[in-house]
């Protein structure tokens, strides 16, 4: 074989090898994308209508492609059984109470199955499990609702048109606000006042916040009231005592009320004293008589001191007093301090 033939053979070999590489790479990429090279588990769902779903379409879970449709078979009377190949590694995330619904990859794109929900309380799916199927959204229903929305939109735009025309004409408060300069100025003032009020409110809020933070500071009264159980217990006891004192006060008040009511009556001594004017006059007369009698008794006592029978007695008494007054400064000198010292011996003597 000449060198030219040899070179030609090598080039043909490389050419063929590259072509095979392209083919194999394509096959592997397709297999990888269709999850053919990974271990899968099988899930089934029974639908009333699969809306054009085909074998090989994708299965999505939380927006991630997790498998493909393995087969679609008629089931029962008019239902359809869809068998799905799901990646084994996502098996743990799909719960037995998950639901399958038929969706579309785009408005005109391929159909697919979307697996929704499932709660953590349910166990993960197992190979061959059947999950609940949810009926797909019918395109006719969709269009019908879209038509309703259109009608609503027409009504809304009609109302809006009417509203804007009134605004342009200056009708209503908002219209006046837009067209009347005086009102606009008033509104501006209101807004300015509102702004000032808001600022004041903010300041007050800050002060209140500071105050409450102080209240919450450890050692404060409010904080102790809120946190110290001992203080609370004492407060509770105080409240109990206060309640008892209130009850006693109430009782005293009741007694006083009874006493005062009795004082208003004339059938007892104090009542007569307070309420009977005749008795008052008599008492006044008695007091006057007593005063007169006392004066006369005083005169009689002075006369009695002058009487010779009793003069000796009074002189003797006067001398005794004078002697006592003379002896007293010598026995007990006057203290220069104004403090009073308590002497228990005095009590004992008395």
């Amino acid at each position: 074989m000449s060198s030219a033939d040899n070179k030609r053979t090598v080039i043909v070999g490389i050419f063929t090898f590259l072509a095979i590489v392209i083919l194999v790479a394509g096959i592997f990429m397709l297999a990888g994308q269709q999850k053919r090279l990974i271990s899968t588990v099988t899930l089934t769902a029974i639908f009333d209508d699969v809306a054009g779903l085909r074998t090989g379409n994708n299965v999505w879970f939380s927006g991630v492609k997790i498998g493909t449709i393995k087969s679609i078979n008629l089931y029962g009377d008019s239902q359809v059984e869809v068998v799905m190949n799901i990646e084994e590694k996502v098996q743990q995330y799909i719960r037995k109470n998950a639901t399958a619904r038929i969706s579309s990859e785009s408005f005109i794109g391929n159909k697919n199955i979307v697996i929704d929900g499932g709660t953590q309380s349910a166990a993960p799916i197992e190979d061959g499990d059947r999950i609940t199927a949810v009926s797909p959204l019918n395109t006719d229903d969709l269009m019908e609702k879209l038509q309703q929305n259109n009608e609503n939109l027409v009504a809304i735009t009609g109302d809006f048109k009417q509203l804007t025309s009134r605004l342009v004409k200056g009708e209503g408060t908002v219209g006046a606000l837009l067209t009347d300069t005086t009102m606009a100025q008033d509104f501006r003032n209101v807004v300015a006042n509102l702004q000032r009020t808001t600022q004041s409110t903010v300041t007050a809020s800050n002060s209140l916040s500071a105050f409450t933070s102080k209240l919450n500071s450890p050692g404060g009264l409010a904080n102790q009231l809120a946190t110290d159980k001992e203080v609370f217990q004492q407060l509770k006891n105080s409240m109990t005592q206060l309640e008892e004192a209130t009850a006693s006060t109430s009782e005293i008040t009741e007694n006083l009320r009874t006493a005062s009511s009795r004082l208003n009556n004339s059938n007892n001594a104090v009542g007569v004293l307070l309420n009977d004017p005749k008795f008052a006059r008599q008492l006044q007369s008695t007091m006057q008589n007593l005063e007169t009698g006392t004066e006369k008794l005083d005169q009689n006592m002075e006369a009695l001191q002058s009487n010779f029978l009793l003069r000796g007695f009074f002189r003797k008494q006067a001398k005794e007093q004078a002697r006592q007054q003379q002896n007293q400064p010598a026995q007990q000198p006057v203290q220069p301090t104004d403090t009073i010292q308590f002497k228990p011996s005095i009590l004992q003597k008395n």
Partner: protein
Amino acid sequence: MDLDKNKPGTASSRRRYVTTRRLDRIFVELANVYRFNARFFKEVWLPPYEFKEIIRQCYEIGVRSLPLISLTGFIIGIVFTNQSRPSLADFGATSLLPALISVAIIRAIGPLVTALIAAGRVGSAIGAELGSMRVTEQIDAMEVSATNPFKFLVVSRVLATTLMIPALTMFTTLVSLLGGYLNVHQNELTSLSVFFYQVFDAITFLDIIASSVKSVIFGYTIGMVGCYKGYNSSKGTEGVGKAANSSVVTAMFLIFIEELLIMQVINTIRAF
């Protein structure tokens, strides 16, 4: 077999034509084609194997055709993508362009364009080469010198086209997809990974298998038509040109017929 000797209107011609002269000619041609194909399948398994000639033909048919077919495929990828965009843009579905390109190129355009270009370039070359060898009696000389001209000339060429057209199809498909990606990237700013994700998302294994089988059949057709037309050419230099021309036309026609039939078969399989 020469049917021209039987002039119409004579008693002998009425006896010898089974149907009519033209119909008989077609059936005789079909029989010759059948015999030619059968001889190929017979000779291909029997030694001696002309590896050196097969490699040479693979080089001429495959490697030498690569630049032309790759360039054509690249341009077709760009043009097809660009021309498909407005239709999808009407639906706001330009994001589906990679899927559309994928289905179109892998299922149909890749094998078909490769086969058509190869039919034009390779088929005509084979027809002209073998035709000139026939009219210059080189083939007869080979037969006299105890060399099997069918094995050396036909089997090697048909094998080369049958092996190289699928390989060329792989290159064409890849280059066309890259051309499509270039256009999509320029207009939609789609990344290469997303593009190829969508490309492979739109196809199945059946598409790749069908494309490969199709290109094998196309390759066999190109080689066989070229060889048949050239090997059986006559009437001197005029026959050479006729063989070359006929090789291209017949090969292209058969390629389209085969494309149609294979598509129907694949769709039937896909439905299951």
